[in-house]
């Protein structure tokens, strides 16, 4: 009998995509905001709010999904003897890149993972984000082909690699044992949440599977354009198909470009926001989800990137850079989107990414 090589090579990434999509549907049914079962950018933004790093009252909560993803990755890596302390690949640049990836994602209102989940809910406004994400990745690939590199990471003590998982454990302890110290939204997306244990378990499962399969939204498209390899993209597509089918079965599929949950129809800025996130993700070597997974495996540089993203979320809300969803006010449909501050921040983000890209091409240090 002919052996099915494709299935043998892709079953894990397919399984991961199906599990991530199913977990997103379950979390939404259990209380998370619509089309936001998982969103790395939104959830890190909520964590920044819960810690008082920004004061946007509607988006504050310690999201156990983020904690679970990092700790799930840690546990899977330890079990497979793949946990290794590594660091030293331009951490300051990674912090700044993480900050602007977050700003780009919050302009769009979602990380690449939520972009797929929004598409799976029938949200046509997310198509602009997808096109922007692809455009950003293509720009990043141009610089990769020119030799862009943030430099290699080196082996370091395990303690360095345990820093971000340690921070996550502290956040979990605060959430469970001392929630009165934190700020929790009483209305808006931050107030919509599944029971913490359900969220934590979903995060643990997704983190472990993503560590084993290397699921990455940006890496999937990079491999397609650069290597003509579709393995990681399979996970991306599995999430989209699972969420689409699940929403259709539950009668929650809304194929439309208007009145989508926590989304806006300012298409140009959705495109540019995700272009910023896509370009930055390629320079970082992975999307926001992948950064959490790498941090769980002991990568201190990714830990710094995650901290940069959390600070980016605080900056986005303290300076009014993040997108506002479309809404209906007194029966009139009001288009949301970003204001002048947000537009300036996106343009500034492109300038910063260009400078970092140019400064890390071959030959710049030898002069």
């Amino acid at each position, binding site marked *: 009998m002919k052996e099915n*090589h*494709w299935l043998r090579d892709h079953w894990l990434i397919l399984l991961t995509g199906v599990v991530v999509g199913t977990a997103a549907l379950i979390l939404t049914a259990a209380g998370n905001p619509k089309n936001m079962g998982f969103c790395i950018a939104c959830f890190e933004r909520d964590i920044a709010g819960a810690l008082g790093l920004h004061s946007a009252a509607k988006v504050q909560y310690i999201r156990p999904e983020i904690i679970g993803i990092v700790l799930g990755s840690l546990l899977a890596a330890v079990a497979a003897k*793949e946990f290794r302390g590594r660091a030293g690949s331009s951490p300051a640049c990674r912090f700044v890149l993480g900050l602007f990836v977050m700003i780009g994602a919050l302009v769009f209102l979602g990380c690449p993972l939520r972009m797929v989940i929004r598409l799976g809910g029938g949200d046509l406004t997310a198509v602009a984000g997808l096109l922007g994400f692809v455009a950003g990745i293509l720009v990043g690939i141009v610089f*990769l082909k020119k030799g862009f590199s943030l430099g*290699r990471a080196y082996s370091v003590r395990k303690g360095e690699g345990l820093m971000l998982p340690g921070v996550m454990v502290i956040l979990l302890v605060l959430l469970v044992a001392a929630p009165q110290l934190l700020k929790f939204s009483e209305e808006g997306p931050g107030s919509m949440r599944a029971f913490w244990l359900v969220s934590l378990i979903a995060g643990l499962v997704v983190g472990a599977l993503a560590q084993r399969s*290397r699921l990455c939204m940006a890496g999937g498209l990079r491999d397609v354009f650069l290597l003509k390899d579709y393995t*990681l993209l399979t996970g991306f597509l599995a999430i989209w198909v699972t969420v689409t089918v699940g929403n259709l079965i539950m009668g929650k599929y809304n194929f439309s470009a208007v009145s989508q949950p926590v989304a806006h129809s300012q298409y140009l800025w959705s495109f540019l926001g995700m272009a910023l996130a896509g370009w930055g993700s390629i320079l970082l070597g992975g999307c926001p989800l992948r950064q959490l997974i790498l941090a769980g495996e002991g990568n201190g540089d990714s830990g710094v990137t995650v901290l940069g993203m959390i600070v980016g979320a605080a900056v986005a809300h303290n300076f009014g850079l993040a997108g506002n969803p479309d809404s209906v006010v007194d029966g009139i449909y009001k288009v949301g989107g970003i204001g002048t501050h947000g537009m300036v921040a996106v343009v500034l983000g492109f300038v910063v990414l260009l400078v970092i890209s140019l400064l890390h091409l071959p030959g710049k240090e030898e002069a």
Partner: protein
Amino acid sequence: MRKKELRTIAAFHTTAAAMAAERLCRREGLEGRLIPVPRSVTSDCGIAWSAPAELRDTLELRFREAGLEVAGVYLLSV
């Protein structure tokens, strides 16, 4: 469906080094192509150079002469 075969897989610490390896091999007419690093080699999602198994020694020598830092060279069925 492409059949699996034994190949020399060279993994690098950075994507830039893998792409430099590709340029070197193209310049010198050494057969091969860039692939995602096999999962059995590392959990990193970087890029590796895949070449015919018999080129292992040649590649190791040429990469060393060119100053390309290699994370590891493996013989794998891919």
